[in-house]
Each structure stands twice: as structure tokens, then as C-alpha cells.
């Protein structure tokens, strides 16, 4: 048999180890951050504080009594963690952005930093945590009594409670961390998590493979009723238990502490999403075998809640029993430590601080050190909470099965769920709704579950339990309003959580949120949109920097406050002295303080110094609420649609131009084919005549041949012109420009056409003096244009005494060559079409060319940086003007 002395020595050694780990890690992190502490594995192990001695001992007891039902307690958390993206991530994000210190802090911050809500949540948390702590004391006491037979349970429980309080005070309240993290404690908790897992697995492996002969043997001849727990296992209780455990993993103050407050990086959560369910899987895989083996091997009067310990003891495996005891001890201590830290933080921040604030406000002269006060209040709170746990243990007599006590706590914290989840997803949730829901829910929980758990020894007598208070049957705590036939737990959950949620929703719908409440609600619901802890709206700057600094000093400590203010001053460009008390400074300070004392207290303190009204009408405008967001969104939409409209308009214009060009191209093609067709037809017909009539007189055939020859030349010229214009218009050819004297070019062109002019009897006159004026042009091409224009003037001149007047003049920039004739010119109607391809003057004869001369000429002029235009004189007569750039 394991001796008490060895057990105590082992326990002592284990506790010393825990102290050492916590101490060393705490010391180290003070110097520099320890990397492995940030690992997701440590984070997950600290979350496993969920597995208390209730899991370690109680799950086996539950499995022995109710079969597989125990597994629901682990399925709920598994579902929550697998679905971390939807709830846990948001909680963690909000917790980090707003420096949340506890679940009470979160709920009170969400509803406008309400201190009444914070107090309410704290009170519920304390009440719900008390039975849970009692449960731990009870299980450690009982397991101790197994070995130290005859030890007094009350004395044992007292010393255990005292020891745990000491450890928690030493490591949980060493400092007021900037964001309420306890690295030393987390490291110790992680170690405990490993110990309890290994211990339970060791006992499981022992039971399965050494006492029994593998899984098949364990389950052989086990009636289905044992596994399925007799009645319908998958009834309402199954659903309610899963719901409760899922709720507990979020709402239990200690779970909130390790999951949200102690979270360092969001990616820790991604890993924990599978690692934590895996841990639970490992913890529970041997629960059923241990229970079944225990039922087979152990005497019928043995308590199944202690099989984990008694099984190795009964089979003379002392070292395993010792390990199992340490495992149970680990699970109990880790829970108590974290729960006490979490709840004491709430108590000191939300109950002690506001009272202290009142006192300070009453007496300005008192320069009390708030920091010390906080630490002391936390230490006292821890002692009080453990004391309450001990008291519960003492009053309830510690007679019940472990699972029942744990579930009481679960239902208690489940009251936070509506306000918590509603608060972070529903903008419309209001403070009054949350208060109404919480008060009603907590009241119903106390009445239907918590008070009955004392079995008639506390407030409610056993008579009142059985028949209702004052004999009112309808008020029976476990059959409220005659709702009978339900499991007491299901009954309590339906009443408390149901009424809570209902009141929360209904009251929220019928009440108006305050300004700060609306702001906080928006910040919480839209936490992914607002980066970080957006500054809260603040007062008109009535705060004195000195006052703010004194406040910061009192709470953060002298050096951290100094650092903070130096940093803020530097940000304002002040190298020495205090920063100006701008809104952002006040908001930053409030956020920093919230990390130590909770949002509500920080807000109250800063407001007291900054003075007066916190949010005015002007600030209201800045509140990023729904309306503002909608306006912003619709403005962006309007901008976008305007941009789209512009683009569409441009596209329409471009499209129109493309269509016109396409039509022109078609027109051009049909013109070209028409123009080519005419000479081709005559060539073909004359050639046919020659072929068919061999006896054509030689002079006729030679005439025909000369027509064919002429037409071929015309064809060739036409094709040349088409080619020319397509090249010029596509800009595929670069004309080689040289220095040309405009006057010489004109005179040479006139010389060239002198044959035609002479023949047509046209008199040609050149006026103006541009001798020596130079331009940059291609000599040949310029001549081509001049000849074209001049010959047109000759060709289309229907006057009896045709005259052509070439008028030249030069300005600083340009040289103008006007070709004026008395042939009637071009009418205004025709003016727009003269430069179109295949257009010919109305007065032109039939065989006058393809109508490509002018378009080609203009293309040439434009390629030489000049132009060819049709101008109208004052008397309405038209003339062509060649413009050249002067150099």
C-alpha cells in the first residue's frame, strides 16, 4: 500500500517543480520574451485547463453510471474549436483589440463600458465558479483519503485550498501585466496538462492491456445498456449536455482567460482548433475502458469516481497509483489557479476598483497608490474565492457525484452566452437587454439548479424542494410552472438560458442604446473592419496632462507610465515633458489602463479626470455607425458607377468612329472595284472583238489596241494611286524631308504643266514674293501635289477664258500657296466631300481620273507637316490652299 508519507513527499516535490517552472519562466520573460511560450502547443496545453479533476476522476464515474454520455462534455468543445473561425476568432480579435481582461470586461465593454453589467457578470462568475472549485477540493480530498485512510475531509480540503490560494497569489498577482498575461502560470499549467494526460493514459493502458486483455476483452460481454446508459442516451439530455459544454469552453471565466486573454497570436488558435480536440480525444479514449474494467474488477461498493486511483491501488501498482494521484492533483490545481486568477481579476477590476474610485473621488487629496490597492484586492479576492469554494464543499457535504457539480457551474456560466454572442454579432443588442437576460437567467439558474444542489441545506429547505416554497406546487424548483418529466439539468437549462435569451432579445428590441454603447457595439461587431482598438470618442480637452500622468503612474507603475507618456510625447514631436492631452492621448491611455483594470473602470477613471460629458453631439457625427457606413458605401458605389458610365460613354464614341470607318472602308472597296471595273470592261470587250473578228481592218485593230493600251495605263495609274494612298494614310511610309525653296518648287511645277495650260489656253499668273523662303519637304512629293492641284484647276475649268492665279505669301511660321481659278470652284455643299476618295467635281467630265488625286495630295501634305485645304474667299468663290511649315 502506498504510504501517506511517500504521497506527501511526491506531492511536495511536484508542487516545488511547479513553483520552479513558474518562477523561472516569470523571471526569464521579464528579461526577454521566451519564444517557445508563444508556441501554439503551449497555448493548447493551457486551454486544456478545461479538463479538471472532473474529467480526470469524474468522467470515469460518469461512464460507469451513464455509459457514453460523458463524451458530450468533450464533443461540445470539439465543435467550437473546429468551428473556431466563426466565434473564437472574433472573440480573440476583440479581446486583443480592446485589451479585454476578462469575460465580465468584454460584456461590460460591449455594452457601453457599463459598470453595472460588469458587476453583474462578476457576481454570476463568482457564484458559478464556487461549486466548481468545491468540486476540485472534493476530488483531491477524496483521492487523498483513499490513501490516507481516516484523514478528516474538512481539514484536508482546507489545507488544499490554502495551498492553492498561496500558489495562485504568488504567481497570479505578481504584477499587473499590461495585458493581463501570466507567463509563469501558463508554463506551469502547460506542464500540468502534460502530467494529467500522461497519467490518465498510463492508467488507461494499464487497465486495458494489463488488467484486461486489450479493447476486445474490455468490451466483451458488456451489455449494451451499460454503454448506452440504460435509458435513451440520445435524448434531450444529450443535446443539452453538448450545448452546455460548447458554451462552457467559451463562457467559463478560466477558459476565457486562457483562450482569449492569454492569447498572443491568432495563429495559435488555428493550431489549437485541431490540437485541443486531439488532446480531449487522448484524455477520453481510455475513460470507457477504465470504467468497464473498474466495474468488473472492483467491489460493487467502490466509488466509480475514483476508479482511476483505486484500480491501480487494488492491483498493487503503487507507482502507477501515485502517478494517477499526481494527475488528478494536476488537473485540480491547474483549474483552481486559472479560475481564481480569472475571477479575482474580475472582482478587483469591477467591484473593488469602482468602490475605490468613489472613495478617491470623494477625497482628491488622497494620493493612494491604485496599483497596490489592485494587487491587494486581487490577492484578497483569490483567498475569498477559494474560501467560498471551501465553504460550498463544507455546506454541500461533498456527497454528490462529481459530474453533477461541474454541470451546475456549466449552466451558471451559460448565462453569459446570449449577451456575449449576441453582443459581438448583433448591433441591436442593448445594455438593458443584456442586464434583463442575465438577471433573469442567473435567478432561474440559482433557483432551479444551484440552490437545489445543496439538497435542502441552504436557503431552500428540502420541503420547498419537493413541494415548492410555501407549498406552492407551481413553484417547485425542479418542475417550474408544472414543467415535469424533464431531467433536472435539462429543466434548468431550458428555463434559465431560454428566458435569458428571450429577454435579452426582446428587451434589446424595445430599448435604445446609449451613444457610447452604440459606438462600442459597432466596434465589436465590426472588429475585422476597424483596425485595432479604434480610439473611442473623447471629451473636449479639459484634461491636464499632469493629472493623466499621475493616474497612469498609480495604475501602471512609475516606469511604465513614464515610458508610455514619453512615447506619446515623442509621437507629438515633444522631446521633453508631457504630451498634450489630445483626444488620441486620452484614448490611448484609457486603452492601456483597460489592460490592467478593465474597460469600465479605466473609462470611469479617465472620464473623471478628463471631465464631464464623454461623448457630445459633435463626436456623435464621427461615430462609425451603420448610417455612416452606408453613406460611405453608397458614395463609393456612386463614384464607381459614374466611372463606369464615363468608360461606357468613351466606348460608345470609339465604337461610333469604328462604325464610320468600317462604312468608309466598305464604300472605298466598292468604289475601287467600280473604278477598276470600267477600264477592265473596255479592255476585255475590245480584246474580245479582236479575238472574234480575225478580219478586222488593221487600222481598226490598231485603234482598238491603242484603247486597250490606254486603259491599261489608266488601270496601272489607278492601282498606283490606291497603293499610294493606303501607304500614306496608314503612315507606313516616312517621307524623306529636305530643305526646299517653296518658290522654286512652285515654278518648276508650273513649268511641268505648261504643256497642258498652253493646250487649254489657260493664262497663269503667279503673285507674291516667297523667294528664298524655305520649307522642309520632299521635293518630288511636293511637286506632285502642286501639279495635281494646278492640273485640276486646268481640267475642271469650264470658263471661256480660263485663268489661274497662284498666290503665295509667307508668315513667320507658314508658307501659303493658294491656287485660284475662275472656273466656278467648288460649292460649299461639295466642299466636305472633295477630299473623299473617288469624289469628283460635279463639273468634271466622264474620263477625268479616279478621284484619288486630292485625298493623296492631302495625305502627302500632312505627311510633310503641312496641309491641303479648301478655302472660301469673301465673295464665296473657293480656292485650294497648300500650307507648308516654314523653317
Amino acid at each position, binding site marked *: 500500500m502506498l504510504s501517506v508519507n511517500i504521497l506527501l513527499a511526491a506531492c511536495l516535490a511536484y508542487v516545488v517543480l511547479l513553483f520552479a517552472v513558474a518562477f523561472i519562466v516569470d523571471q526569464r520573460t*521579464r528579461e*526577454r*520574451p521566451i519564444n517557445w511560450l*508563444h508556441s501554439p502547443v503551449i497555448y493548447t496545453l493551457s486551454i486544456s485547463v478545461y479538463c479538471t479533476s472532473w474529467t480526470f476522476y469524474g468522467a470515469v464515474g460518469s461512464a460507469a453510471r451513464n455509459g*457514453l454520455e460523458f*463524451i458530450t462534455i468533450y*464533443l461540445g468543445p*470539439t*465543435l467550437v*474549436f*473546429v*468551428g*473556431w*473561425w*466563426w466565434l473564437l*476568432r472574433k472573440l480573440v*480579435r476583440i479581446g*486583443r*483589440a480592446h485589451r479585454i481582461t476578462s469575460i465580465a470586461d468584454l460584456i461590460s465593454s460591449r455594452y457601453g463600458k457599463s459598470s453595472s453589467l460588469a458587476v453583474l457578470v462578476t457576481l454570476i462568475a463568482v457564484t458559478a465558479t464556487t461549486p466548481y472549485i468545491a468540486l476540485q477540493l472534493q476530488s483531491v480530498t477524496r483521492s487523498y483519503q483513499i490513501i490516507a485512510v481516516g484523514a478528516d475531509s474538512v481539514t484536508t480540503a482546507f489545507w488544499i485550498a490554502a495551498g492553492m490560494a498561496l500558489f495562485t497569489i504568488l504567481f497570479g498577482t505578481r504584477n499587473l501585466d*499590461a*495585458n493581463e498575461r501570466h507567463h509563469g502560470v501558463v508554463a506551469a499549467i502547460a506542464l500540468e496538462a502534460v502530467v494529467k494526460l500522461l497519467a490518465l493514459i498510463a492508467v488507461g493502458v494499464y487497465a486495458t492491456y494489463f488488467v484486461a486483455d*486489450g*479493447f*476486445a*476483452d*474490455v*468490451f*466483451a460481454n*458488456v451489455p*449494451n445498456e451499460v*454503454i*448506452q446508459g440504460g435509458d435513451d*442516451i*440520445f*435524448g434531450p439530455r*444529450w*443535446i443539452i449536455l*453538448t450545448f452546455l459544454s460548447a458554451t462552457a469552453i467559451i463562457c467559463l471565466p478560466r477558459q476565457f482567460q486562457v483562450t482569449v486573454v492569454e492569447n*498572443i*497570436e*491568432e*495563429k495559435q488558435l*488555428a*493550431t489549437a*482548433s*485541431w490540437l485541443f*480536440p*486531439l488532446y480531449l*480525444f487522448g484524455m477520453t*479514449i481510455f475513460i*470507457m475502458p477504465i470504467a468497464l474494467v473498474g466495474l468488473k474488477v472492483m467491489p460493487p461498493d467502490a466509488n466509480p469516481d475514483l476508479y482511476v486511483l483505486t484500480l491501480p491501488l487494488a492491483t498493487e501498482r503503487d507507482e502507477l497509483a501515485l502517478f494517477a494521484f499526481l494527475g488528478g492533483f494536476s488537473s485540480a490545481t491547474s483549474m483552481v489557479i486559472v479560475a481564481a486568477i480569472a475571477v479575482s481579476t474580475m472582482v478587483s477590476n469591477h467591484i473593488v476598483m469602482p468602490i475605490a474610485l468613489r472613495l478617491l473621488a470623494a477625497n482628491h487629496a488622497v494620493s493612494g497608490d491604485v496599483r497596490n490597492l489592485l494587487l491587494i484586492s486581487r490577492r484578497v479576492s483569490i483567498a475569498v474565492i477559494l474560501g467560498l469554494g471551501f465553504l460550498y464543499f463544507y455546506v454541500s457535504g461533498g456527497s454528490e457525484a462529481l459530474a453533477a457539480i461541474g454541470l451546475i457551474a456549466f449552466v451558471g456560466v451559460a448565462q453569459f452566452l446570449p449577451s456575449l454572442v449576441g453582443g459581438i454579432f448583433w448591433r441591436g443588442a442593448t445594455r438593458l437587454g443584456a442586464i434583463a437576460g442575465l438577471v433573469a437567467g442567473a435567478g432561474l439558474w440559482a433557483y432551479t439548479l444551484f440552490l437545489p444542489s445543496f439538497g435542502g441545506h441552504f436557503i431552500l429547505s428540502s420541503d420547498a424542494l419537493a413541494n415548492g416554497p410555501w407549498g406552492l406546487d407551481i413553484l417547485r424548483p425542479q418542475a417550474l410552472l408544472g414543467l415535469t418529466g424533464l431531467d433536472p439539468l435539462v429543466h434548468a437549462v431550458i428555463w434559465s438560458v431560454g428566458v435569458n435569451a428571450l429577454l435579452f432579445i426582446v428587451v434589446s428590441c424595445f430599448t435604445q442604446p446609449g451613444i457610447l454603447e452604440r459606438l462600442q457595439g459597432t466596434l465589436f461587431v465590426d472588429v*475585422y473592419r476597424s*483596425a*485595432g482598438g479604434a480610439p473611442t470618442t473623447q471629451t473636449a480637452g479639459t484634461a491636464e496632462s499632469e493629472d493623466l500622468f499621475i493616474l497612469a503612474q498609480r495604475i501602471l507603475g512609475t516606469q*511604465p507610465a513614464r*515610458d*508610455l507618456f514619453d512615447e506619446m510625447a515623442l509621437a507629438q514631436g515633444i522631446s521633453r515633458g508631457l504630451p498634450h492631452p489630445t483626444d488620441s492621448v486620452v484614448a490611448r491611455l484609457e486603452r492601456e489602463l483597460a489592460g490592467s483594470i478593465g474597460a469600465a473602470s479605466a473609462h470611469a477613471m479617465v472620464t473623471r479626470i478628463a471631465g464631464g460629458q464623454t461623448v457630445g453631439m459633435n463626436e456623435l457625427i464621427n461615430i462609425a455607425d451603420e448610417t455612416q457606413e452606408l453613406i460611405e458605401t453608397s458614395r463609393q458605389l456612386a463614384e464607381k458607377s459614374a466611372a463606369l458610365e464615363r468608360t461606357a460613354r468613351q466606348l460608345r464614341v470609339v465604337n461610333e468612329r469604328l462604325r464610320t470607318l468600317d462604312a468608309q472602308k466598305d464604300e472605298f472597296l466598292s468604289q475601287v472595284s467600280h473604278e477598276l471595273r470600267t477600264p477592265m470592261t473596255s479592255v476585255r470587250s475590245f480584246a474580245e472583238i479582236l479575238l472574234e473578228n480575225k478580219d478586222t481592218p488593221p487600222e481598226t485593230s490598231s485603234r482598238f489596241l491603242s484603247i486597250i493600251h490606254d486603259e491599261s495605263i489608266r488601270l496601272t495609274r489607278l492601282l498606283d494611286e490606291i497603293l499610294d494612298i493606303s501607304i500614306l494614310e496608314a503612315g507606313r511610309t516616312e517621307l524623306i524631308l529636305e530643305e526646299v525653296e517653296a518658290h522654286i518648287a512652285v515654278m518648276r511645277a508650273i513649268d511641268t504643266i505648261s504643256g497642258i495650260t498652253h493646250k487649254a489656253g489657260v493664262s497663269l499668273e503667279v503673285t507674291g514674293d516667297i523667294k528664298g523662303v524655305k520649307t522642309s519637304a520632299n521635293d518630288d512629293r511636293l511637286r506632285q501635289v502642286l501639279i495635281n492641284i494646278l492640273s485640276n484647276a486646268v481640267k475642271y475649268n469650264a470658263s471661256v477664258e480660263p485663268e489661274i492665279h497662284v498666290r503665295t505669301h509667307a508668315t513667320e511660321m507658314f508658307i501659303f500657296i493658294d491656287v485660284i481659278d475662275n472656273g466656278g470652284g467648288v460649292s460649299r455643299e461639295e466642299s466636305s466631300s472633295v477630299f473623299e476618295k473617288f469624289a469628283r467635281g460635279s463639273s468634271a467630265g466622264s474620263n477625268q481620273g479616279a478621284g484619288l488625286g486630292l485625298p493623296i495630295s492631302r495625305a502627302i501634305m500632312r505627311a510633310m507637316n503641312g496641309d491641303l485645304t479648301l478655302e472660301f474667299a469673301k465673295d464665296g468663290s473657293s480656292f485650294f490652299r497648300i500650307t507648308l511649315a516654314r523653317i
Partner: protein
Amino acid sequence: MAGNSDLQLSRRKTRDKSFALLVVGFVLLMPPIVRTSLFEGHIFGIPYTVFYMFSVWAFLILGAVIISPRLRDEDKSLQSNDNDKASGSD
């Protein structure tokens, strides 16, 4: 732009998968579907009901192992606020 929207699409897909996993797990573990495990018989010597429960559990864990690492947040600004803590304590 195309790459960005592809990325968003794949992120959404991952999120959908994660949600689907949650729904499947919930449906399999809650009545009425869970009643299908009330079936007498053993698999590898383990009663069917027990085997069913732990298999669904293992499936959920496996699903989370595969999906969770891909659910990282795109917003890096809040990935770690430990830096300001470190600088604050120096």
C-alpha cells in the same frame, strides 16, 4: 486583379469547407442521425456505438488539421501584438 480574386475565391472556399465540416460534425453527433449508431455489434472488438462516436470525432480532428492552417487571416496587422509589449517593457 485576377490573381487577387482567385485568392479570395480560394479563401472563401476554405471557409466554406470549414463550415461544412462543422455542420457535418454537428449533424452526425446530434439526434436523429446519431441514433443510427444504436446498433448492436462490435468493430475490432469495440461496440459499434463507441466506435461510431470516436470515428466521427477523429474525422472532425482530421478535417480541422487539414483546413485550419489554410484559414489564416489576411490581416497581418493584428497577428501579433506582442511586439509592442516587448518594446514597452524594455
